[in-house]
């Protein structure tokens, strides 16, 4: 298990599936019967990539890259030297690879170490969202949050929120054999 695995699962209203499989992770966190199938049904095994600025994190989160998988949500987090390093092709290549959503975590305005880095990123995200809309993809697949001192758990919550925004549109059509 990854060292950042002990995050709190957001409270969800779940209809328990008829067949319940044991899940060590859920059992450990919730201390009750595993609800993995039910949560999976809601999350549709969504994959979210989180790109985060190294300056907007607490020390605990300062790992170059890590991944977390729980309850049907797969989160891959990649630390960037500054959110402004996240270029448009980079975001599109991630989506092209089949990732369902990309969440960018940038510093708030006036907190950016490179002054306008996070502002530029926000504009790029808007640009990408516009491009996605033009080709019939949900612009919600890319989002940005501007926060400081984020913990890994908080990053996962942001990823979860992004997954929630994308869920109505289904999984990424780039996944083989699937259609949006």
């Amino acid at each position, binding site marked *: 298990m990854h060292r950042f695995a002990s995050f709190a699962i957001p409270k969800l209203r779940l209809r328990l599936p008829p067949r319940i499989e044991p899940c060590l992770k859920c059992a450990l966190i919730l201390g009750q019967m595993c609800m993995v199938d039910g949560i999976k049904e809601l999350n549709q095994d969504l994959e979210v990539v989180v790109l985060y600025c190294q300056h907007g994190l607490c020390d605990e989160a300062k790992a170059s890259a890590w991944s977390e998988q729980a309850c049907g949500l797969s989160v891959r987090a990649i630390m960037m030297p500054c959110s402004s390093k996240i*270029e*448009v*092709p980079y975001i*599109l*290549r991630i*989506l*092209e690879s089949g990732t369902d959503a990309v969440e960018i975590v940038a510093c708030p305005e006036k907190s950016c170490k490179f002054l306008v880095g996070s502002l530029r990123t926000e504009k790029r995200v808007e640009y990408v969202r516009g*491009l996605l809309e*033009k*080709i*019939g*993809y949900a612009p919600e697949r890319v989002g940005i949050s501007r926060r400081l001192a984020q913990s890994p758990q908080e990053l996962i919550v942001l990823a979860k929120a992004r997954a929630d925004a994308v869920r109505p549109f289904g999984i990424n*059509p*780039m996944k083989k054999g699937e*259609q*949006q």
Partner: protein
Amino acid sequence: MIFAEWKPLDELIDKLEPHKKVLLAGCATCVAECAAGGEKETETLAPLLRMALKKKGHSIEIVTATIERQCEWEFVEELAEKVVGVDAIMSIACGIGVQALAERFDPIPVYPGVNTSALTIREEAGIWAARCAACGDCVLGETFGYCPIARCAKSLLNGPCGGTRKNGKCEVNEDVDCVWSLIVERAERRGRLESLSILRKPKDWSNSRHGGPKRVIREDLRQ
């Protein structure tokens, strides 16, 4: 720089739909400066097209390459190994680059990915403005460095049209300066306002597009 903008994505997607393997070719000179056809834009457009076509049920292989200049044969030659096996090329260079690729790699179809529209300067990040119309008979020496052909909505040569706004903006577009207003202001600053009273005769357009397709021969440079 030569200015170009992406064609509507739907148009590009329609063009590529019948093909299996396409080379998306960028140019690292003018169209890179106007953020339409450089390496970054090539690497942006390629995944976008793949995603759009996949969504429509077409699996297409798009390879990318950005060369220094698509308007120079020496650089165009660098694409020769990239076109092996492709059944179409999409160039996001200006119209010159598209034609160069079409000539060099005939009979592979070459589609333009951009609309080439002007000769511009970058006023500031994200803003480009026309500065030259390639008219073939430059008058900048008499108009204090402002081009009335490219920058006047009516390309007037003998002063403003009368529609200049009170704030010195063009009647056609309130965000654009009336170039004749700028010319007069600069002439005044230099104490040469009277030079603008000289009547200019009809312009000779024969050295521009109006004289037919242009072809220039310089014997001193020929091999």
